[in-house]
């Protein structure tokens, strides 16, 4: 594998009234596991169903109902761990996190506080400017999602839908390695990309299938390095946790706003209270969420309904052996095998479908040319109509056909774009279209010469000017291209024009 090396990005610096400040960010990302059924019941996980229709008695916490774990959810968590190069714990266990909320009928969430299934891993976060940071993952544990409360359907009541209750979440906990709002967004984007490659989470933030709690603190420049050397958190500021955000944009805004709030407090001589806060995008502020005395008093204890989860190394090895190629490896291979730039390789490996489309198109062809056509023409055209790559009316074989026609000099670049538009809107075999509609490039110098002679004869004044100022030769090239309907080989035209005008 090609080793991609990157410079470290500079941490974000915010200028306060008195000093410069840096940010320290750690994230807890909640990713909904892609599965048919819930973590401990046989109810469906399907989004958008009638309220309370995807609910088993276990999910509704009816007395006497017992949880039975969905083995596939365990497999998905293990797969995610392997994708983040993390250690897999063959022995893990479930605990109860106790709190009361109407959308949590059990009165506790089944989670894995003490013995998570996945231990330390890492995520390479590229910032797109040639810099990247390796963010350490502390752990991943499985837990139940809560239900959904709707507060705006009635002035006095909240409405509760338990369809989501008990769906399996992976909580992916990072170390405080993230140093700015952009890095935070890039970290989530990379996690999402990896999980989409793995098929363990669809990453749909709008539906709430990927959400993040963000821990933000501030410190003076130099303090973070002291923390890194010693592992001593006292070098850093007190952190606040901004809860439950499901938009990249809001996450970035919230971090910036929260950092500025903390800076203002500290510079005024105050101290930051460790607390949970909510971001209000309308007001552009964070506000305290829970009364302090009750915060984090979850009285965790091992869930007596569930035996410890023991898995076998052979099973883990089997999952590892069947992992798909991951984004970092795919990108490195694209750079290596197809000679692509870092940027093009990043764009093409952003999702599995785009990468597969490109690879199919580039097979046996120039990788760079294929990349140009996929990124500039196809992606551009798809974007115009808000279509995804899977909805492309042009197949890799068709796009490859166009590229072949360019490579063999059968059509000019300009005609190729027209041809692409025809294939995109009407379909058909590119070679056949070129043949039928007479789009072939004219390389026959006799025909080009005839057209040029005509133009020269009709424009004696232009010819005189061009002889004095050779830059005007371009005008003749343009005229010939126009006269031949863009089909003349530009190189042949250039040569002929230079020759004729030089006479």
């Amino acid at each position, binding site marked *: 594998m090609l080793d991609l090396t990157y410079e470290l990005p500079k941490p974000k610096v915010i200028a306060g009234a008195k000093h410069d400040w840096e940010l320290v960010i750690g994230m807890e990302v909640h990713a909904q596991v892609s599965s048919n059924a819930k973590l401990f019941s046989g109810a469906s996980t399907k989004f958008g169903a009638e309220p309370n229709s995807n*609910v088993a008695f276990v999910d509704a916490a009816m007395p006497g109902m017992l949880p039975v774990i*969905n083995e596939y959810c365990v497999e998905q968590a293990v797969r995610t761990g392997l994708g983040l190069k993390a250690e897999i714990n063959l022995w893990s266990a479930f605990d109860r996190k106790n709190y009361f909320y109407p959308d949590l009928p059990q009165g506790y969430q089944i989670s894995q506080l003490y013995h998570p299934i996945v231990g330390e891993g890492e995520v390479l976060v590229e910032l797109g400017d040639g810099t990247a940071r390796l963010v350490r993952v502390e752990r991943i544990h499985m837990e139940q999602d809560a239900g959904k409360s709707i507060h705006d359907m*009635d002035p006095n009541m909240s*409405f509760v839908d338990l369809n989501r209750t008990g769906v399996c979440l992976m909580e992916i906990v990072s170390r405080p390695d993230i140093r700015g709002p952009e890095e935070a967004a890039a970290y989530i984007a990379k996690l999402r990309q990896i999980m989409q490659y793995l098929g363990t989470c669809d990453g749909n933030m709008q539906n709430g299938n990927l959400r993040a709690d963000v821990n933000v603190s501030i410190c003076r420049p130099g303090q973070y390095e002291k923390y890194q050397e010693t592992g001593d958190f006292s070098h850093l500021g007190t952190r606040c946790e901004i809860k439950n955000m499901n938009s990249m944009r809001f996450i970035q805004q919230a971090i910036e706003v929260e950092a500025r709030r903390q800076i203002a407090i500290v510079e005024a001589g105050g101290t930051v209270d460790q607390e949970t806060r909510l971001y209000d995008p309308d007001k552009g502020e964070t506000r305290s969420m829970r009364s302090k005395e009750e915060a984090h008093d979850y009285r965790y204890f091992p869930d007596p309904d*569930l035996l410890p*989860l023991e898995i076998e190394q052979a099973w883990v090895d089997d999952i590892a052996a069947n992992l798909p190629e991951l984004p970092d490896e795919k990108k490195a291979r694209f750079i290596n095998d197809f000679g692509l730039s870092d940027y093009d390789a990043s764009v093409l490996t952003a999702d599995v479908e785009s990468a597969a489309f490109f690879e199919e198109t580039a097979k046996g062809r120039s990788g760079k040319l294929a990349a140009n056509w996929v990124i500039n023409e196809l992606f551009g055209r798809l974007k115009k109509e808000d279509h995804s790559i899977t909805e492309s009316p042009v197949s890799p074989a068709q796009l490859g056909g166009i590229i072949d026609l360019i490579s063999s000099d059968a059509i000019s670049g300009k005609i190729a774009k027209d041809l692409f538009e025809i294939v995109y809107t009407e379909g058909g075999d590119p070679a056949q279209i070129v043949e039928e509609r007479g789009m072939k490039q004219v390389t026959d110098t006799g025909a080009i010469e005839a057209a040029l002679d005509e133009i020269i004869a009709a424009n004696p004044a232009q010819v005189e000017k061009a002889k004095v100022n050779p830059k005007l030769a371009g005008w003749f090239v343009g005229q010939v291209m126009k006269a031949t309907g863009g089909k003349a080989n530009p190189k042949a035209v250039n040569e002929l024009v230079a020759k004729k005008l030089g006479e």
Partner: protein
Amino acid sequence: MSIDQSTAAKVAKLARIKVEEDALPALADEFNTILGFIEQLNEVDVEGVEPMTSVTPQRLKRRVDEVTDGNQQDKILANAPDAREGFFAVPKVVE
């Protein structure tokens, strides 16, 4: 460790159990009796002994990833004090 009345009140509050002021001393006493028993257990040296999680050796039972349950909105909502349009209706809770 001993439980005083204010700790007893706090635990009751976290468990959403209403305890009248005059019942707190007795409650705190009961807690202390329980904790006393636990402390007695703590005297046993269990260094190096793996916690026992079941009486007979058992593996955590698994289910396959199939939808086998649900589609019973009426049953789920049957005992709800208030339900509207397929939802549980509860007194307003907003953070």
